[in-house]
């Protein structure tokens, strides 16, 4: 991990480029705000941020109103595109884009009546680019890396020490059953149906798979102590979400935007061929 591949400019282009890809995906899956057709039921759950979201009456202007929803999506599209082109050089456009992504995440989660974590990365990462000074940006980008590690490490801690379902043998089977029962009944001829049936009827294998997945999440804790393993840790969420895609029927590719923070980063630009100034490369720091 000695060779830096990212500086602020590249990090900005990759982050907002990824956001643009998510925007296209959301359009394709009919889940941009204007595509929701002014939904009527929502969930505010037990998250204070969602309560504030309704308290400030954001939905009345940008969700319930057809033109408000269109304007919101246009702002999201233009600000994301603009930040790719300018590499997040303008602080105001970064702020608009970051706030728009935060509100988009809350809006979708609220009106889908289920709080999904997939969009979490994009609700937070764009704010990092509000900082332009190289040294400060390096520090805050590093903070985003810890946030990425936290997301997986926290899930591990919950499963291993709080919920303690890591030690519950039927858990593997129960997760597959819960998520794939409808698929199995409605798509008996799919090539995946015999695979799910096999794992449901072999609880030992399902449990081994579940333990392996939890340990994969737990392995992200290593990143809190060293950055030398980042090249391996980069692939952990990719593998984790790929397996979840097939067995748990959830699509978390949007969260992979946080993986960018695991790429080797250098505060200064290397375009001139000179070594970067400012804080030394990522790999030397420890948490």
């Amino acid at each position, binding site marked *: 991990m000695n060779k830096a591949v990212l500086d602020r400019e590249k990090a900005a282009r990759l982050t907002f480029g990824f956001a643009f890809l998510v925007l296209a995906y959301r359009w394709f*899956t*009919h*889940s941009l705000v204007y595509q*929701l057709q*002014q*939904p*009527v*039921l929502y*969930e*505010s759950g*037990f*998250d*204070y941020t*969602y*309560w*504030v979201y*309704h*308290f400030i009456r954001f939905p009345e202007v940008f969700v319930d109103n057809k033109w408000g929803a269109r304007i919101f999506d246009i702002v999201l599209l233009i600000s994301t595109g603009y930040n790719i082109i300018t590499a997040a050089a303008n602080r105001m456009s970064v702020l608009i884009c970051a706030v728009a992504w*935060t509100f988009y995440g*809350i809006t979708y989660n609220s*009106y889908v*009546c*289920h709080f*999904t*974590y997939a969009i*979490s990365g994009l609700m*937070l990462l764009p704010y990092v680019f509000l*900082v332009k000074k190289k*040294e*400060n940006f390096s*520090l*805050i980008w*590093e903070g985003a890396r*810890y946030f990425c590690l*936290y*997301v*997986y490490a*926290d*899930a591990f801690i*919950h499963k291993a020490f*709080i919920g*303690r*379902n890591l030690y519950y043998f039927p858990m593997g*089977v*129960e997760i597959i*059953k*819960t998520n794939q*029962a409808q698929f199995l*009944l*409605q*798509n008996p001829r*799919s090539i995946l149906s015999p695979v799910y049936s096999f794992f*449901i*009827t072999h609880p030992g294998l399902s449990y081994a798979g579940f333990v392996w997945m939890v340990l994969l999440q737990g392995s992200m804790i290593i990143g809190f102590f060293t950055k030398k393993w980042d090249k391996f840790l980069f692939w952990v969420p990719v593998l984790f979400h790929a397996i979840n*895609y097939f067995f748990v*029927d*959830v*699509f978390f590719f949007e969260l992979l935007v946080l993986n960018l923070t695991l790429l080797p980063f250098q505060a200064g630009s290397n375009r001139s061929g000179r070594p970067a100034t400012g804080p030394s490369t990522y790999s030397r*720091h420890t*948490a």
Partner: protein
Amino acid sequence: MRKLYLVRCFYNNKIFFALLIIFIAAVCYGHKTNLPITPAFISNVYILKGDTKKDSFLFITVNGTTLLNLHHTFDEPRRMMIYSTLETYRQAALNGGTDPELALIDRTVKKHPFLHGLRQAIGWKAGNYDHYLPWLLKYIRASVSDSVKRLDVGVAYIHYNDRNLPVTDSTKPLYHIE
């Protein structure tokens, strides 16, 4: 000691250090009370122990003939917009047409009186529940096909056989929308 991330933040950027402390405090509060404060998420997905509660699922028949089968995982945002809201509507129907979480929310507010002001802003308005089924038809028309004229929503009751595989016991019609 100076190499520690928090210490470096303290010396280099006090504002960010303060934000970080707030974030950590929010995470701790969320863990203690199980009330998260976005973006201080709590990653508590699949932490509960116990057998699956899924003994039924909702299905939708389009124009009286075709089963709406959005089974691709990458289609999750659209599929959830349909089935997750439908499940909430069904729970609300069992709850007299009100937000099924409202009672729990009120209990939470009772424990934390400072939330009283925010509580006034949440909760469905009078027409939200009644407008749901027409909205569902509009959304499916826009997102699946504009040839959709009629929807029949039903519930399928299932059990798991001795090999743990799901088997349909019966189905029951719930809502008819056109």
